[in-house]
């Protein structure tokens, strides 16, 4: 994942948005694919692009904002370079996910839902990764890791930080 400034370069996001709109605007119900494509490319759906989308799809800004804010996935600013999601759902709880989360939060000095100020790491909750027979689970920059403990996670984080 590329490092992204918190402020988006208007030329960049406008160009990306135009390309994405051109690719999808003729699909029925195109709004979610458009938002996903923008987020895949920019790491976020910057609030600045909402008017562009609204105008193109003949929707009101309020409608587009309503959709973006409904879904947990869409974010206004990009996540940290390392993005760790910890599963908090029942099957992972049955294998100690809560204690694991608490311990990791303490070791990292970061709570679920927070990003380090330097943008190096985001910690997030997720509710089931479909790997419930191998709990507890985590997803690190899109990669699934099963039966993890705190040491595994700290090692994986170190490895990722070295990589990005």
């Amino acid at each position, binding site marked *: 994942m590329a490092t992204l400034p918190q402020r988006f370069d208007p030329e960049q996001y406008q160009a990306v948005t135009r390309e994405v709109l051109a690719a999808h605007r003729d699909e029925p*119900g195109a*709004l979610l694919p458009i938002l996903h494509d923008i987020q895949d490319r920019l790491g976020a759906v910057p609030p600045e692009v909402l008017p562009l989308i609204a105008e193109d799809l003949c929707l009101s800004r309020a409608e587009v904002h309503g959709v973006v804010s409904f*879904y947990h996935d869409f974010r206004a600013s990009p996540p940290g370079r390392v993005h760790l999601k910890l599963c908090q759902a*029942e099957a992972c709880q049955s*294998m100690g996910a809560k204690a694991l989360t608490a311990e990791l939060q303490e070791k990292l000095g970061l709570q679920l839902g927070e990003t380090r100020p330097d943008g190096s790491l985001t910690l997030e909750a997720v509710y089931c990764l*479909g*790997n*419930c*027979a*191998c709990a507890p689970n985590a997803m690190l920059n899109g990669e699934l890791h099963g039966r993890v403990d705190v040491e595994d996670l700290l090692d994986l984080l170190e490895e990722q930080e070295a990589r990005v």
Partner: protein
Amino acid sequence: MNSPITVYVPRDASALSLGADKVARAIVAEAKARNLDVQLVRNGSRGLFWLEPLVEVATPAGRVAYGPVKARDVAGLFDAGFLDAGEHPLALGLTEEIDYLKRQQRLTFARAGITDPLSLADYIAHDGYRGLKRALAIGSEAIIAEVLESGLRGRGGAAFPTGIKWRTVAGCEAAQKYIVCNADEGDSGTFSDRMVMEDDPFVLIEGMTIAALAVGATEGYIYLRSEYPHAEAALQATIATANAEGYLGDDILGSGKAFHLHLRRGAGAYVCGEETSLLESLEGKRGEVRPKPPLPAIEGLFGQPTVINNVISLASVPIILDKGGAYYKDYGMGRSLGTLPIQLTGNIARGGLIELAFGITLRELLYDYGGGSASGRPIRAVQVGGPLGAYLPEAQFDTPLDYEAFAALGAVLGHGGIVVFDDTVDMADMARYAMEFCAIESCGKCTPCRIGSTRGEELLEQIIVARSEGPQPGRIELLKSLCDTMLGASLCALGGMTPYPVLSALNHFPEDFGVSQDAAEAR
């Protein structure tokens, strides 16, 4: 060696999460270093997850298995001659003879773990697309008759007869009809949809194509949750192949019939698994639940008649068409016919996918298959059917897996997920979590769910804080009446069924709420 030896390392996300890619790379490197001719196949998973990564070798006697294999075990496996089924501490013998697998009745999952999921040739060599060919030959009415005959009920949770849904859509006059596959699989404790999509995706494509022929639809959507990137990649690849080879597109196998299949990614909302919320989301809107009627079968996607079915429901159709509804119906009990892909998860020694005829008991699953808890401690509770499913105590472990038997207990089978908890579980906290989850995921359309879940969470927090100080009948009464309101007045099952886990936890484990067993029964 003249011909290469085939070695299988799964590409399923669970296997990958336990290091399958590293194992695959180590096998290739080691074979090269030893000048051995190995052909690596990335198969699907057999679903024996405590043994993943499960490496298999093709031998004249059949496929032999080794597992769980770590990358550091690979050199030792070569030393032990695993390419000739050599003895090794990780050796499991012939894969098909592994008890857990051998005792299953795999119909929907007949190919999972056996084939290369991305290979159309492999799919066809293992009886794939026989159902579609028969469907093309017999036509709409006879297809629906087979599905009705099979007794198949929707595997997404509500257990509505699939054939009746299809008949309704087939009977509608409309310029455009749709087939929508619900691949939102948000329930904790479930992964059977994911396995179909990663380990045998063509069977879902085939099932959707048969549904399209049955009802006269030409457009289809798979609504896939965003937490499943591997399934997304597998579906993209196989949909492209099916289009290129004439199994999808304008002219399916030269029949003149068209079916165009699109893949859409969800965006992390649990409620979008509810069918009308899913349709709203596909239309590019907020995933708010629609009041019913109208049924989606009559006014569904973009206001048109729409079949919306779960992945497993659709993936069970090809074998029903191939072998006949009567063959499928022979499995099961009562009005629960056919097989259920059960997912045994959580605190369990041998977790995995177990496809069996309806009727097996929880106890057999937990102990004969599962081998008891993973922690070695006594099993105290299981939650069946996802976050909206009831908790069952040991006293109910002899219940057979059957829709009606579960309903009689105030429980549900749902999508077939079983989450196991040992005796360290705090059931009041699980009840609190059920309310918390409902509050996080509520679509906000109706008050009992939107406000009630937050109120319920607060109330359970108070109960947990005060429970050591003795009974708190006031708060417990309040919790019950709140649950009553949610049960009776919510628009959909998210608000309407969150009381299931909450009340079952309270009824079966009152001691965790500071209520004595006698007091709970007297009430």
